[in-house]
């Protein structure tokens, strides 16, 4: 048992990807019914949270899932861990389809796929001691580790950087970052092969975030656990994941290795997303280092998403074809192997500043087009 925890390097390099997929998701769909109507309430529509998703996660790799609220990334996480049952599609874990498996069939797999949640305050039972929380999964699965559960709990606490003597304390005695460590320890208790981490650091302060990111990275490398890392923070995902998928309104619009997505993106939405990240420019005196793209409005409702390409209503390159035809997720010429993009009119593979900024927001255009002197005069008057 213990030996597994101190796996030697070798898998540690991370970028080496095993050929056989650990998890394969294809055609995944999750619709949540919307009730309404009169006089009898019935299903009148569906929130298309996830709508036709394909992805592959290899053993030991970290796969990042980024997107804005409503893009379906959290739903995807919950489908993979089978906290939700998909409407359609298959989730193949180590060759077995678990998409519609029953509780009983899932039991042996549950221990291999674990989840870490966003909120370290509400995801731990306040009435249980830390020892009880961490040993809970072992108890449920009837696992009796060598040397007893308590010994194992102490080991796990040590791995996540907590004092092993604290196993008798309650969650409220710990800070936010420490609670998230407890969450990690619980996820590790059953020696999982895949951990789905849903926004694991976004509730934490900046200085604590880095502690937890480092811990997860260490766990991923040293124990060779595959991660599906779900977050809205593009910089954190870049730091943590070797492969990244960008989601928009229930679909993956671009996926590829880290370098491709962050420096050679092709989908306009990926461009917009990257350009929106506020960054500290560490070198003074230089002009903008990245392109400036400002979209208009918010993400449309997933109840009635746009036809064809879902991004077209906010896209500066959209044409009639985009409304009529849904672009397939394919490798474009010039893209690296495994870098897939769903776009009819892809962008240049660079994030360098453009000759002219793309500003779609009407308020910004109105305010920025007017010469400054004009505005000055109006203020004075």
């Amino acid at each position: 048992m213990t030996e597994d925890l101190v796996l030697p390097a070798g898998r540690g390099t991370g970028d080496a990807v095993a050929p056989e997929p650990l998890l394969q998701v294809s055609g995944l769909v999750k619709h949540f019914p919307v009730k309404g109507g009169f006089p009898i309430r019935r299903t009148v529509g569906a929130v298309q949270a996830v709508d036709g998703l394909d992805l592959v996660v290899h053993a030991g790799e970290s796969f990042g899932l980024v997107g804005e609220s409503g893009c379906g990334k959290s739903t995807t996480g919950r489908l993979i861990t089978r906290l939700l049952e998909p409407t359609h599609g298959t989730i193949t874990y180590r060759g077995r389809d678990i998409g519609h498996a029953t509780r009983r069939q899932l039991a042996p797999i549950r221990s291999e796929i674990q989840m870490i949640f966003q909120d370290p305050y509400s995801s731990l039972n306040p009435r249980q001691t830390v020892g009880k929380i961490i040993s809970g999964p072992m108890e449920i699965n009837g696992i009796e580790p060598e040397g007893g559960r308590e010994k194992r709990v102490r080991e796990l606490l040590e791995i996540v950087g907590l004092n092993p003597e604290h196993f008798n304390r309650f969650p409220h005695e710990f800070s936010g970052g420490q609670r998230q460590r407890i969450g990690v320890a619980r996820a590790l208790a059953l020696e999982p092969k895949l951990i789905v981490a849903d926004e694991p650091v976004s509730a934490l302060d900046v200085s604590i975030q880095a502690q937890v990111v480092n811990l997860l990275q260490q766990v991923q490398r040293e124990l060779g656990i595959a991660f599906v890392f779900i977050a809205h923070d593009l910089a954190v995902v870049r730091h943590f994941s070797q492969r990244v998928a960008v989601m928009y309104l229930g679909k993956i619009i671009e996926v590829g290795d880290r370098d491709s997505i962050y420096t050679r993106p092709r989908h306009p939405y990926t461009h917009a997303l990257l350009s929106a990240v506020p960054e500290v420019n560490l070198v003074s005196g230089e002009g903008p280092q990245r392109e400036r793209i400002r979209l208009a409005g918010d993400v449309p409702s997933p109840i009635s998403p746009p036809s064809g390409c879902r991004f077209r209503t906010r896209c500066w390159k959209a044409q009639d074809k985009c409304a009529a035809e849904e672009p397939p997720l394919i490798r474009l010429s010039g893209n690296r192997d495994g870098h897939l993009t769903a776009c009819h009119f892809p962008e240049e593979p660079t994030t360098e500043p453009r000759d002219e900024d793309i500003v779609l927001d009407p308020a910004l255009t109105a305010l920025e087009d007017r010469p400054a002197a004009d505005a000055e005069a109006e203020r004075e008057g």
Partner: protein
Amino acid sequence: MTTVTKAEGAPAPTGPDGFLSVRDLQVTFSTEDGPVKAVDGLSFDLDRGTTLGIVGESGSGKSVTNLTILGLHDPLFTTVDGEIVLDGKELITATEKEMERLRGNRVAMIFQDPLTALSPFYSIGRQIAEPYMKHNGASKKAAWERAVEMLAKVGIPNPKERARDYPHQFSGGMRQRAMIAMALVCDPDLLIADEPTTALDVTVQAQILDLLKDLQREFGTGIVFITHDLGVIADMADDIMVMYAGRAVERGTVDEVLRSPQHPYTWGLLNSMPRLDSDLGTPLSPIPGTPPSLLTPPPGCRFHPRCTFRDRVGGDRCATERPLLAPDRSSACHLGAEQKRTIFVEEIRPRLG
């Protein structure tokens, strides 16, 4: 024993126009567990039309400071000392009536979560029109027209119709735009923005930040911008003040604080934050430990229990003596000026990639 040197006792020379100046602000909450000094001896200045960014983590006292400027703290449980002077007027001793005339009129505020910060019970238009009627004596009709005009200005499509909508009918980004319209309806001199984009998606955040900058240029508003995100502050601010555990630990221009930071806490923040262009080979270097409880704050420098550089200060000065923060460009740290420069250039900067 703690030797608390009266920090920033000497009045800082006021800026070019000294539009807003805060001197030795102390805010204490009485709680069941005892008094909590949420803000401890804070001083800063803001010039008209410029932006001061206040950076800090939860519990650093950055939000409390700004509620105090507006006098919105709960007087039952809060004691406030020091000086807050806005355009020559002392605010701590001002009467409630005087404060009411100021709020929403000369000083406005926008909050983090626009869903809870707008009343669910009244239409957006009405909520924007209200302060305009109160402060400008405008008629209901004129105020409504002004509200529609403001909604158009902040980029709400069909402002005439949308003004009649309720906040829950707006999307997150539109709500924050409505909040901004509400704050700017009386053309205030000072806008306090408390984490205004934290609850928003990144593409919407970029729109809102640009909108604030553009509107600031048009209206000439001074902004105090509170955030925990260094990237956002780099984008928005002219000057930066870094806060930790109720005190300011570093201040300077954006260029100074972000490109040649002097305080170990600022170093820690920069080092623990992943960036889109950071070197993936170097792991993040988090600040060890957790922020202190303000019920029993550490003596001396409040950052010293988490500071990895305190050994380089002779003796136990860090644990006993509060480091001073001088006016203008400075950092509250006992390390020598040359030491700070060397440490940053040789040890911190390389890790930033």
